């Protein structure tokens, strides 16, 4: 029913939220709750269809639909394991967030706009997931960006919100342009191999379909392929907030908390990871030239693209976690946490991809989904807290656990999941435990095989820091003395129910891991793409390596417990002094200053644009046109005018002079 080739249901997954968007936008004002039920119903519908599709195609079918669009582009739907998993996650989390928002946004007068925009946002993300070609993917991807712009700037009357929205859009736009450049390069290369007769497609319209791309990837010039994949990854860096384009994500907290949850958990940021996962065969197919060229710096036999993905991801995971340690805004902490966790996903794709092949997609996606659950939970809890205390600053919170038991508990569950707490060997633990464990093990395996242990080191240290900052957050907010005047209270049911559902998932999702990996590993095979699997037996993983993630997780908890709950260590001394490291972290490595102020405003606007303006107005227009051409003509006119003295004898003189001159000219010219 859902997966027939001509079934309309797959398309409905996207179209329902779009419809909801239109209806809510125009009718929302007249409906109760700002029309919130329209998007909720639509997304619920999408979820049900996704579920239906999943049930029908599991375990070894895919849905593919395609129609010609404009020029040589097509529009189509591809639901393979990768997509269907994402679909269910996105629709489900989004649905919960929508429900939660009914309560959270209940006092906002612009509710219809809010729900319309979130519906569109969800639709755009679903579009990304469903796309069967890279162009449609890009289009949806851009729509996601725009929706995030609209949502981050939802309270547009706040200058900071407007600025953050702009920053989010522009920084991701940098990535988008790289992505677009990658598409251009890919398009050109595919056209080239078609022109050279080495490759053919059924129809021009299928030029940019993923399946075509994967096939073509084997024929494209390897260097070009590296460029293409790296450009794609550039897009992913922007969207997923990887270093160095991570700055927009923490600022994006200016929107309503539900929006943050949506952006950080279910949609938007995961699109970057999804992009790399989607085009993973191309990444794997890139040549390993870096290792050959610089054997002392880079491991051998690791595809260049994957190597870079791994390093960027790993570094981001660590880098963002350091900043998470010192942030005081509850949402900022979570934002850096998101950046860091996305780094993990990238790391997984890079490292595991290099040694395990297609399995890496499963590993990464598993973390993506578990992260979606616990991060959404974290944000919604944060929203609940903010709703209750009216501030974002964790220094002004405290002792909330007594008043907000549900929120406190669920948030603790989420924190545990984020920190990856669980019991090794027994395979009991939170969702994060399983997913993160796999990533760290994957990077260890990578290190074993290639001798490059740096990504592994990144992963482990970041895990420690993650644990510290998240429990710091929890302890500061929920324990100790209340530091706020305001009377906090538990949120209404419409908000707490989603928390509970998410908490359950954050706790138990991990147990699906075996089936999950198996299902996703076959993803590309189902599309007919052969990928080099991992060769040989998996190396024996030492016990200490298996234990390490949990150990650092617990260690982090203990450190936070010591500092922020028991207050055995007074942090105020460290933070109040002009500790350069603290300042560096608090100022986010001066990234906003360098990125926005220096590059964005000073260099682009003040230097380049203003000098262009100067050239345009003063030189081209002012000097050349107005002054040289215009003024000269006028003064010439004035001067020539004065020749007309009004005295007739002068006129006669001029006439006779003219005769003389004519004679001279003729003499000179005619030579007579």
């Amino acid at each position, binding site marked *: 029913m859902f997966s027939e080739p001509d079934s309309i249901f797959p398309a409905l997954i996207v179209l329902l939220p779009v419809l909801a968007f239109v209806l809510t936008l125009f009718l929302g004002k007249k409906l109760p709750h700002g029309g919130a039920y329209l998007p909720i119903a639509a997304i619920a519908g999408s979820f049900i269809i996704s579920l239906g599709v999943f049930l029908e195609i599991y375990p070894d079918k895919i849905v593919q639909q395609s129609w010609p669009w404009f020029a040589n582009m097509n529009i189509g739907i591809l639901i393979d394991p990768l997509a269907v998993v994402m679909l269910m996650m996105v629709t489900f989390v989004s649905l919960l967030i929508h429900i939660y928002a009914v309560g959270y946004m209940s006092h906002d007068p612009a509710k219809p706009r809010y729900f319309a925009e979130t519906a569109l946002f969800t639709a755009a993300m679903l579009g990304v997931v469903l796309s069967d070609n890279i162009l449609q993917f890009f289009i949806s991807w851009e729509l996601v960006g725009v929706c995030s712009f609209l949502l981050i700037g939802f309270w547009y009357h706040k200058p900071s919100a407007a600025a953050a929205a702009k920053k989010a859009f522009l920084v991701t736009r940098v990535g988008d342009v790289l992505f677009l450049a990658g598409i251009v390069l890919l398009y050109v290369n595919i056209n080239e191999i078609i022109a050279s007769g080495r490759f053919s497609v059924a129809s021009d319209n299928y030029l940019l379909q993923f399946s075509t791309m994967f096939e073509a990837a084997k024929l494209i010039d390897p260097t070009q392929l590296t460029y293409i994949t790296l450009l794609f990854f550039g897009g992913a860096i922007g969207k997923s907030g990887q270093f160095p384009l991570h700055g927009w994500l923490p600022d994006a907290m200016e929107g309503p908390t539900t929006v943050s949850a949506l952006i950080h958990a279910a949609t938007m940021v995961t699109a970057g990871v999804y992009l790399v996962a989607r085009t993973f065969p191309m990444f794997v197919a890139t040549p390993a030239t870096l290792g050959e060229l610089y054997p002392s710096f880079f491991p051998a036999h690791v595809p260049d693209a994957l190597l870079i993905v791994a390093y960027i991801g790993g570094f981001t995971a660590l880098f963002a976690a350091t900043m998470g340690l010192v942030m005081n805004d509850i949402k900022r902490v979570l934002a850096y946490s998101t950046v860091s966790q996305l780094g993990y996903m990238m790391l997984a794709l890079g490292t595991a991809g290099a040694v395990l092949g297609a399995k890496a997609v499963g590993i990464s996606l598993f973390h993506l989904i578990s992260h979606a659950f616990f991060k959404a939970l974290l944000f919604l809890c944060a929203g609940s807290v903010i709703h209750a205390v009216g501030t974002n600053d964790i220094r002004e919170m405290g002792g909330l656990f007594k008043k907000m038991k549900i929120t406190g508990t669920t948030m603790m569950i989420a924190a545990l999941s984020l920190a990856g707490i669980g019991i090794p060997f027994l395979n009991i633990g939170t969702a994060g435990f399983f997913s993160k464990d796999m990533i760290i093990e994957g990077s260890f395996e990578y290190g074993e095989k290639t001798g490059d242990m740096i990504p592994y080191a990144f992963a482990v240290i970041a895990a420690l820091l993650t644990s510290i900052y998240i429990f710091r957050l929890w302890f500061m907010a929920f324990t100790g003395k209340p530091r706020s005047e305001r009377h906090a209270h538990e949120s209404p049911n419409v908000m707490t129910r989603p928390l509970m559902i998410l908490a359950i998932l954050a706790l138990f999702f991990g147990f699906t891991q075996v089936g999950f990996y198996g299902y996703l590993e076959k993803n590309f095979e189902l599309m007919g793409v052969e990928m080099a699997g991992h060769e040989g037996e998996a190396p024996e993983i030492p016990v200490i390596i298996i234990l390490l993630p949990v150990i650092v997780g617990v260690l982090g908890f203990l450190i936070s417990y010591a500092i922020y709950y028991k207050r055995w260590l007074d942090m105020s001394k460290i933070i109040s002094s002009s500790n350069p490291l603290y300042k560096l972290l608090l100022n986010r490595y001066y990234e906003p200053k360098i990125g926005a102020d220096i590059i964005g405003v000073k260099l682009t606007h003040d230097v380049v644009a203003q000098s262009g303006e100067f050239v345009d107005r003063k030189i081209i227009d002012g000097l050349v046109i107005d002054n040289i051409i215009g003024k000269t003509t006028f003064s010439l006119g004035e001067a020539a*005018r*004065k020749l*007309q*003295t*009004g*005295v*007739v*004898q002068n006129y*006669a*003189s001029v006439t*006779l002079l003219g005769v003389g001159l004519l004679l001279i000219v003729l003499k000179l010219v005619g030579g007579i």
Partner: protein
Amino acid sequence: MADLFMFLIISAIIFSIGSYGIITQRSGIKILMSIELMLNAANINLVAFSSFNGDASGQVFALFSIAIAAAEAAIGFAILVALFKVRDTINLDNINILRW
């Protein structure tokens, strides 16, 4: 009899004197006289050519031009007199309300 060239020289001299007069003189009357000199010079040319070419049309031309010069003089002086009535001067240096 002097040759054609001599007549042409005389005509050229008178023509030049007339030109000089037009440029230098201030009185309207003198300028008109100078113009008459120039026309006269042209007439000398016409008649001289006519005579040396043995063709009568030059003389006819000269007759016409004499008549026309006379008419022109009449008009010119009439304008001068009219102007004098209005402006009380015929010094052309001062007659320059129209300029620039």
